[in-house]
Protein backbone atom coordinates (compact mmCIF):
# COMPACT_ATOMS: atom_id res chain seq x y z
CA UNK A 1 0.00 0.00 0.00
CA UNK A 2 1.09 3.57 -0.71
CA UNK A 3 0.73 4.60 2.91
CA UNK A 4 2.89 6.01 5.63
CA UNK A 5 3.22 4.01 8.85
CA UNK A 6 0.45 5.33 11.09
CA UNK A 7 -2.01 5.93 8.29
CA UNK A 8 -1.45 2.43 6.94
CA UNK A 9 -2.24 0.97 10.37
CA UNK A 10 -5.31 3.16 10.60
CA UNK A 11 -6.62 2.10 7.21
CA UNK A 12 -5.95 -1.55 7.97
CA UNK A 13 -7.77 -1.21 11.29
CA UNK A 14 -10.74 0.30 9.44
CA UNK A 15 -10.64 -2.54 6.96
CA UNK A 16 -10.90 -4.93 9.92
CA UNK A 17 -13.95 -2.94 11.06
CA UNK A 18 -12.47 -1.40 14.20
CA UNK A 19 -14.79 1.39 15.26
CA UNK A 20 -12.18 3.63 16.90
CA UNK A 21 -10.14 3.57 13.73
CA UNK A 22 -13.06 5.01 11.75
CA UNK A 23 -13.23 7.92 14.16
CA UNK A 24 -9.49 8.48 13.91
CA UNK A 25 -9.61 8.42 10.13
CA UNK A 26 -12.54 10.83 10.19
CA UNK A 27 -10.55 13.20 12.39
CA UNK A 28 -7.60 12.99 10.02
CA UNK A 29 -9.63 13.85 6.92
CA UNK A 30 -12.70 15.77 8.08
CA UNK A 31 -11.29 19.26 7.47
CA UNK A 32 -9.95 18.40 4.03
CA UNK A 33 -13.20 16.76 2.95
CA UNK A 34 -15.40 19.50 4.35
CA UNK A 35 -13.21 22.29 2.95
CA UNK A 36 -13.41 20.92 -0.58
CA UNK A 37 -17.16 20.39 -0.25
CA UNK A 38 -17.67 23.91 1.09
CA UNK A 39 -15.44 25.67 -1.42
CA UNK A 40 -17.00 23.71 -4.26
CA UNK A 41 -20.63 24.12 -3.24
CA UNK A 42 -20.40 27.52 -1.57
CA UNK A 43 -23.07 26.51 0.93
CA UNK A 44 -22.37 25.17 4.44
CA UNK A 45 -25.54 23.05 4.53
CA UNK A 46 -24.80 21.46 1.18
CA UNK A 47 -21.15 21.01 2.16
CA UNK A 48 -22.31 19.03 5.22
CA UNK A 49 -24.39 16.77 2.97
CA UNK A 50 -21.48 16.25 0.59
CA UNK A 51 -19.01 15.58 3.40
CA UNK A 52 -21.42 13.14 5.05
CA UNK A 53 -21.93 11.36 1.74
CA UNK A 54 -18.16 11.16 1.22
CA UNK A 55 -17.47 9.64 4.62
CA UNK A 56 -20.30 7.13 4.27
CA UNK A 57 -18.81 6.01 0.96
CA UNK A 58 -15.35 5.96 2.49
CA UNK A 59 -16.40 3.79 5.43
CA UNK A 60 -18.47 1.40 3.36
CA UNK A 61 -15.84 0.96 0.63
CA UNK A 62 -12.63 1.08 2.62
CA UNK A 63 -12.15 -2.65 2.26
CA UNK A 64 -11.91 -2.04 -1.48
CA UNK A 65 -8.89 0.21 -1.02
CA UNK A 66 -5.94 -1.78 -2.27
CA UNK A 67 -3.27 0.87 -1.99
CA UNK A 68 -2.73 1.40 -5.72
CA UNK A 69 -2.60 5.12 -5.00
CA UNK A 70 -1.97 7.24 -1.93
CA UNK A 71 -4.85 6.98 0.53
CA UNK A 72 -5.31 10.76 0.45
CA UNK A 73 -5.73 10.57 -3.35
CA UNK A 74 -8.42 7.94 -2.86
CA UNK A 75 -10.22 10.16 -0.33
CA UNK A 76 -9.93 13.16 -2.64
CA UNK A 77 -11.50 11.12 -5.44
CA UNK A 78 -14.43 10.25 -3.20
CA UNK A 79 -15.14 13.85 -2.26
CA UNK A 80 -14.61 15.05 -5.83
CA UNK A 81 -17.08 12.48 -7.11
CA UNK A 82 -19.60 13.39 -4.41
CA UNK A 83 -19.36 17.03 -5.43
CA UNK A 84 -19.49 16.42 -9.17
CA UNK A 85 -22.32 13.91 -8.86
CA UNK A 86 -24.40 16.44 -7.08
CA UNK A 87 -26.63 17.72 -9.83
CA UNK A 88 -27.74 20.85 -8.13
CA UNK A 89 -25.82 23.87 -9.25
CA UNK A 90 -26.22 27.13 -7.52
CA UNK A 91 -26.10 30.16 -9.76
CA UNK A 92 -26.78 32.81 -7.20
CA UNK A 93 -25.66 36.25 -8.07
CA UNK A 94 -24.48 38.62 -5.44
CA UNK A 95 -26.01 41.94 -6.44
CA UNK A 96 -23.85 45.00 -6.27
CA UNK A 97 -25.35 46.63 -3.25
CA UNK A 98 -25.60 50.38 -3.28
CA UNK A 99 -25.18 50.29 0.46
CA UNK A 100 -21.77 48.81 -0.06
CA UNK A 101 -20.45 51.97 -1.61
CA UNK A 102 -21.85 53.97 1.24
CA UNK A 103 -20.09 51.71 3.70
CA UNK A 104 -16.92 51.91 1.67
CA UNK A 105 -16.74 55.50 2.74
CA UNK A 106 -16.69 54.42 6.39
CA UNK A 107 -13.40 54.96 8.19
CA UNK A 108 -10.72 52.60 9.45
CA UNK A 109 -11.27 49.03 10.57
CA UNK A 110 -14.95 48.84 9.68
CA UNK A 111 -14.08 49.59 6.09
CA UNK A 112 -11.53 46.80 6.01
CA UNK A 113 -14.00 44.40 7.58
CA UNK A 114 -16.65 45.25 5.03
CA UNK A 115 -14.21 44.94 2.15
CA UNK A 116 -13.00 41.61 3.46
CA UNK A 117 -16.54 40.26 3.69
CA UNK A 118 -17.51 41.64 0.33
CA UNK A 119 -14.43 40.30 -1.40
CA UNK A 120 -14.99 36.87 0.13
CA UNK A 121 -18.54 36.88 -1.23
CA UNK A 122 -17.33 38.06 -4.63
CA UNK A 123 -14.70 35.32 -4.86
CA UNK A 124 -17.18 32.71 -3.69
CA UNK A 125 -19.79 33.84 -6.21
CA UNK A 126 -17.22 33.97 -9.03
CA UNK A 127 -15.94 30.48 -8.22
CA UNK A 128 -19.50 29.21 -7.95
CA UNK A 129 -20.21 30.38 -11.49
CA UNK A 130 -17.36 28.31 -12.93
CA UNK A 131 -18.34 25.04 -14.58
CA UNK A 132 -17.95 22.05 -12.19
CA UNK A 133 -14.73 20.89 -13.90
CA UNK A 134 -13.07 24.29 -13.67
CA UNK A 135 -14.39 24.85 -10.16
CA UNK A 136 -12.99 21.56 -8.93
CA UNK A 137 -9.44 22.16 -10.19
CA UNK A 138 -9.55 25.62 -8.62
CA UNK A 139 -10.68 24.23 -5.27
CA UNK A 140 -8.11 21.42 -5.28
CA UNK A 141 -5.39 23.90 -6.16
CA UNK A 142 -6.25 26.71 -3.75
CA UNK A 143 -8.05 24.96 -0.91
CA UNK A 144 -5.89 21.87 -0.75
CA UNK A 145 -2.74 23.24 -2.37
CA UNK A 146 -2.37 20.17 -4.57
CA UNK A 147 0.20 20.14 -7.36
CA UNK A 148 -0.84 19.75 -11.00
CA UNK A 149 0.34 16.12 -10.86
CA UNK A 150 -1.72 15.39 -7.75
CA UNK A 151 -4.83 17.03 -9.22
CA UNK A 152 -4.37 15.02 -12.41
CA UNK A 153 -4.21 11.81 -10.37
CA UNK A 154 -7.30 12.67 -8.35
CA UNK A 155 -9.35 13.65 -11.39
CA UNK A 156 -8.00 10.89 -13.62
CA UNK A 157 -6.90 13.28 -16.36
CA UNK A 158 -3.59 14.51 -17.76
CA UNK A 159 -1.45 17.25 -16.26
CA UNK A 160 -2.03 19.24 -19.44
CA UNK A 161 -5.79 19.09 -18.91
CA UNK A 162 -5.34 20.36 -15.36
CA UNK A 163 -3.17 23.25 -16.58
CA UNK A 164 -5.68 24.11 -19.29
CA UNK A 165 -8.65 24.04 -16.89
CA UNK A 166 -6.82 26.19 -14.34
CA UNK A 167 -5.86 28.66 -17.04
CA UNK A 168 -9.49 28.93 -18.17
CA UNK A 169 -10.64 29.27 -14.57
CA UNK A 170 -8.12 32.04 -13.91
CA UNK A 171 -9.23 33.96 -16.98
CA UNK A 172 -12.90 33.68 -16.05
CA UNK A 173 -12.21 34.70 -12.44
CA UNK A 174 -10.05 37.61 -13.52
CA UNK A 175 -12.86 38.83 -15.76
CA UNK A 176 -15.41 38.58 -12.97
CA UNK A 177 -13.31 40.04 -10.19
CA UNK A 178 -11.27 42.66 -12.04
CA UNK A 179 -14.01 45.28 -11.80
CA UNK A 180 -14.27 44.93 -8.06
CA UNK A 181 -10.53 45.15 -7.62
CA UNK A 182 -10.27 48.28 -9.76
CA UNK A 183 -13.19 49.79 -7.80
CA UNK A 184 -11.10 49.31 -4.70
CA UNK A 185 -8.08 50.85 -6.36
CA UNK A 186 -6.36 47.45 -6.58
CA UNK A 187 -6.41 47.25 -2.82
CA UNK A 188 -5.76 43.74 -1.53
CA UNK A 189 -8.13 42.68 1.18
Amino acid at each position, binding site marked *: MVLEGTERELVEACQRGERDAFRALFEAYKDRVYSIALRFSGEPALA*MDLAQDT*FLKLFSCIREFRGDSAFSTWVY*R*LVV*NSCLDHKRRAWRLIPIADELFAVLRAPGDSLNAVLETEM*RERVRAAVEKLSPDLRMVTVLRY*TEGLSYDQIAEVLGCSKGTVASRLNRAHKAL*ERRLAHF*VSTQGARHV
Partner: protein
Amino acid sequence: MSDWLDLQLSHHLAPVEAPEALWDRIQRSTVRGAGPRPETLRVGFSAWPIAAILTLMAAAGTLWLVAKGEEPALDLRQLALEQLRNPEAVELHSSDPARISAWMRRAGLNVTLPSQRGTLVRLVGARLIEKGGVRIGEIRYTVGRDTAALLVARAGSGPEGGHGHYAWRSQGQSFAVASSDAERPDEPCLLCHANL
Protein backbone atom coordinates in the same frame (compact mmCIF):
# COMPACT_ATOMS: atom_id res chain seq x y z
CA MET B 1 -2.33 35.10 -14.03
CA SER B 2 -2.35 38.27 -11.94
CA ASP B 3 -0.72 38.14 -8.55
CA TRP B 4 -3.75 39.74 -6.96
CA LEU B 5 -5.98 36.92 -8.18
CA ASP B 6 -3.60 34.28 -6.86
CA LEU B 7 -3.56 36.08 -3.53
CA GLN B 8 -7.34 36.44 -3.38
CA LEU B 9 -7.98 32.82 -4.27
CA SER B 10 -5.44 31.52 -1.76
CA HIS B 11 -6.94 33.72 0.92
CA HIS B 12 -10.65 33.25 0.28
CA LEU B 13 -10.57 29.58 -0.67
CA ALA B 14 -8.40 28.60 2.29
CA PRO B 15 -9.31 25.40 4.12
CA VAL B 16 -11.78 25.55 6.99
CA GLU B 17 -12.55 23.38 9.99
CA ALA B 18 -15.34 20.89 9.66
CA PRO B 19 -18.28 21.47 12.02
CA GLU B 20 -18.41 19.21 15.07
CA ALA B 21 -21.89 18.09 14.06
CA LEU B 22 -20.52 16.23 11.05
CA TRP B 23 -19.46 13.17 13.04
CA ASP B 24 -22.88 12.94 14.72
CA ARG B 25 -24.60 13.07 11.36
CA ILE B 26 -22.39 10.33 9.98
CA GLN B 27 -22.95 8.17 13.03
CA ARG B 28 -26.72 8.60 12.78
CA SER B 29 -26.72 7.60 9.11
CA THR B 30 -24.44 4.64 9.79
CA VAL B 31 -26.67 3.37 12.57
CA ARG B 32 -29.76 3.82 10.40
CA GLY B 33 -28.10 2.18 7.40
CA ALA B 34 -26.65 -0.74 9.31
CA GLY B 35 -29.77 -1.80 11.13
CA PRO B 36 -30.20 -5.34 12.33
CA ARG B 37 -30.57 -7.89 9.61
CA PRO B 38 -33.89 -9.69 9.44
CA GLU B 39 -33.92 -12.98 11.20
CA THR B 40 -34.12 -16.00 9.00
CA LEU B 41 -37.74 -16.88 8.44
CA ARG B 42 -38.61 -19.72 10.74
CA VAL B 43 -41.17 -22.02 9.19
CA GLY B 44 -43.26 -23.71 11.87
CA PHE B 45 -44.41 -27.30 11.65
CA SER B 46 -47.91 -26.24 10.59
CA ALA B 47 -46.54 -24.51 7.48
CA TRP B 48 -45.06 -27.69 6.04
CA PRO B 49 -48.28 -29.09 4.55
CA ILE B 50 -48.87 -25.79 2.73
CA ALA B 51 -45.29 -25.74 1.44
CA ALA B 52 -45.65 -29.34 0.26
CA ILE B 53 -48.89 -28.56 -1.60
CA LEU B 54 -47.32 -25.51 -3.29
CA THR B 55 -44.30 -27.56 -4.33
CA LEU B 56 -46.55 -30.27 -5.78
CA MET B 57 -48.57 -27.65 -7.66
CA ALA B 58 -45.40 -26.11 -9.12
CA ALA B 59 -44.13 -29.54 -10.15
CA ALA B 60 -47.49 -30.41 -11.74
CA GLY B 61 -47.47 -27.12 -13.66
CA THR B 62 -43.99 -27.78 -14.95
CA LEU B 63 -44.94 -31.31 -16.02
CA TRP B 64 -48.01 -29.96 -17.80
CA LEU B 65 -45.89 -27.43 -19.72
CA VAL B 66 -43.33 -30.10 -20.61
CA ALA B 67 -46.16 -32.38 -21.79
CA LYS B 68 -47.35 -29.52 -24.03
CA GLY B 69 -43.85 -29.19 -25.40
CA GLU B 70 -43.21 -25.77 -23.90
CA GLU B 71 -40.28 -24.68 -21.75
CA PRO B 72 -41.36 -23.49 -18.31
CA ALA B 73 -40.71 -19.77 -17.92
CA LEU B 74 -37.33 -19.16 -16.41
CA ASP B 75 -37.64 -17.27 -13.15
CA LEU B 76 -34.46 -15.23 -13.34
CA ARG B 77 -35.19 -13.33 -10.15
CA GLN B 78 -35.54 -16.56 -8.19
CA LEU B 79 -32.39 -17.88 -9.79
CA ALA B 80 -30.51 -14.68 -8.87
CA LEU B 81 -31.54 -15.13 -5.23
CA GLU B 82 -30.39 -18.76 -5.33
CA GLN B 83 -27.03 -17.73 -6.77
CA LEU B 84 -26.52 -15.36 -3.86
CA ARG B 85 -27.54 -17.98 -1.30
CA ASN B 86 -25.11 -20.53 -2.76
CA PRO B 87 -22.57 -18.47 -4.66
CA GLU B 88 -20.14 -20.15 -7.00
CA ALA B 89 -16.82 -18.64 -8.00
CA VAL B 90 -16.97 -16.15 -10.83
CA GLU B 91 -15.14 -17.12 -14.03
CA LEU B 92 -14.01 -13.60 -14.80
CA HIS B 93 -12.62 -11.58 -11.93
CA SER B 94 -12.80 -7.93 -12.89
CA SER B 95 -13.98 -4.58 -11.62
CA ASP B 96 -13.80 -3.10 -15.11
CA PRO B 97 -17.31 -2.56 -16.55
CA ALA B 98 -16.02 -2.54 -20.14
CA ARG B 99 -14.16 -5.81 -19.67
CA ILE B 100 -17.19 -7.52 -18.13
CA SER B 101 -19.45 -6.23 -20.92
CA ALA B 102 -17.01 -7.51 -23.56
CA TRP B 103 -16.82 -10.91 -21.85
CA MET B 104 -20.61 -11.19 -21.76
CA ARG B 105 -20.84 -10.12 -25.38
CA ARG B 106 -18.60 -13.01 -26.36
CA ALA B 107 -21.16 -15.27 -24.66
CA GLY B 108 -23.91 -13.73 -26.80
CA LEU B 109 -25.31 -11.50 -24.06
CA ASN B 110 -25.49 -7.76 -24.37
CA VAL B 111 -25.01 -5.83 -21.13
CA THR B 112 -23.71 -2.28 -20.99
CA LEU B 113 -22.45 -1.38 -17.55
CA PRO B 114 -21.91 2.23 -16.54
CA SER B 115 -18.76 3.40 -14.77
CA GLN B 116 -18.97 2.81 -11.03
CA ARG B 117 -16.50 5.50 -10.02
CA GLY B 118 -17.57 7.28 -6.91
CA THR B 119 -20.48 4.97 -6.18
CA LEU B 120 -20.99 2.30 -3.53
CA VAL B 121 -20.98 -0.36 -6.24
CA ARG B 122 -17.90 -2.51 -6.77
CA LEU B 123 -17.90 -5.03 -9.57
CA VAL B 124 -16.58 -8.46 -8.63
CA GLY B 125 -16.81 -10.36 -11.92
CA ALA B 126 -18.98 -12.54 -14.08
CA ARG B 127 -19.84 -16.17 -14.78
CA LEU B 128 -22.10 -18.18 -17.04
CA ILE B 129 -24.82 -20.52 -15.85
CA GLU B 130 -26.56 -23.21 -17.91
CA LYS B 131 -30.12 -23.80 -16.76
CA GLY B 132 -32.63 -25.88 -18.72
CA GLY B 133 -30.60 -25.42 -21.87
CA VAL B 134 -30.57 -21.65 -21.43
CA ARG B 135 -27.34 -19.72 -21.12
CA ILE B 136 -27.51 -17.13 -18.37
CA GLY B 137 -24.90 -14.55 -17.53
CA GLU B 138 -24.36 -13.51 -13.94
CA ILE B 139 -22.64 -10.24 -13.08
CA ARG B 140 -21.71 -10.16 -9.45
CA TYR B 141 -20.99 -7.00 -7.51
CA THR B 142 -21.06 -5.56 -4.04
CA VAL B 143 -23.02 -2.61 -2.78
CA GLY B 144 -21.42 -1.55 0.46
CA ARG B 145 -21.21 -4.71 2.53
CA ASP B 146 -23.84 -6.62 0.57
CA THR B 147 -23.42 -8.83 -2.45
CA ALA B 148 -25.69 -8.44 -5.46
CA ALA B 149 -26.21 -10.20 -8.77
CA LEU B 150 -27.54 -9.15 -12.14
CA LEU B 151 -28.69 -12.05 -14.28
CA VAL B 152 -29.24 -11.77 -18.01
CA ALA B 153 -30.52 -14.33 -20.53
CA ARG B 154 -31.83 -14.30 -24.07
CA ALA B 155 -35.59 -13.85 -23.73
CA GLY B 156 -38.10 -16.34 -25.12
CA SER B 157 -40.82 -15.42 -27.56
CA GLY B 158 -42.89 -13.47 -25.02
CA PRO B 159 -43.70 -9.80 -25.38
CA GLU B 160 -41.23 -7.10 -24.34
CA GLY B 161 -42.02 -6.04 -20.81
CA GLY B 162 -41.54 -2.70 -19.15
CA HIS B 163 -38.95 -2.12 -16.47
CA GLY B 164 -40.25 -4.14 -13.54
CA HIS B 165 -38.82 -3.58 -10.13
CA TYR B 166 -36.39 -6.47 -9.93
CA ALA B 167 -36.93 -8.27 -13.25
CA TRP B 168 -37.55 -6.88 -16.69
CA ARG B 169 -37.16 -7.53 -20.39
CA SER B 170 -35.42 -5.34 -22.90
CA GLN B 171 -34.15 -5.76 -26.44
CA GLY B 172 -34.74 -9.49 -26.55
CA GLN B 173 -33.16 -10.20 -23.18
CA SER B 174 -34.48 -10.90 -19.71
CA PHE B 175 -32.85 -9.34 -16.68
CA ALA B 176 -33.17 -9.74 -12.92
CA VAL B 177 -31.34 -8.34 -9.93
CA ALA B 178 -31.12 -9.55 -6.34
CA SER B 179 -29.32 -8.60 -3.17
CA SER B 180 -27.94 -10.74 -0.36
CA ASP B 181 -29.72 -8.39 2.03
CA ALA B 182 -33.45 -9.05 1.82
CA GLU B 183 -34.09 -5.84 3.72
CA ARG B 184 -32.58 -3.74 0.94
CA PRO B 185 -33.98 -5.16 -2.28
CA ASP B 186 -33.44 -1.88 -4.17
CA GLU B 187 -29.72 -1.82 -3.46
CA PRO B 188 -28.70 -3.80 -6.60
CA CYS B 189 -30.40 -1.15 -8.75
CA LEU B 190 -27.49 1.18 -7.89
CA LEU B 191 -25.50 -0.68 -10.52
CA CYS B 192 -27.20 1.37 -13.23
CA HIS B 193 -29.11 3.98 -11.25
CA ALA B 194 -26.49 5.71 -9.15
CA ASN B 195 -28.87 8.44 -8.09
CA LEU B 196 -31.50 6.23 -6.45
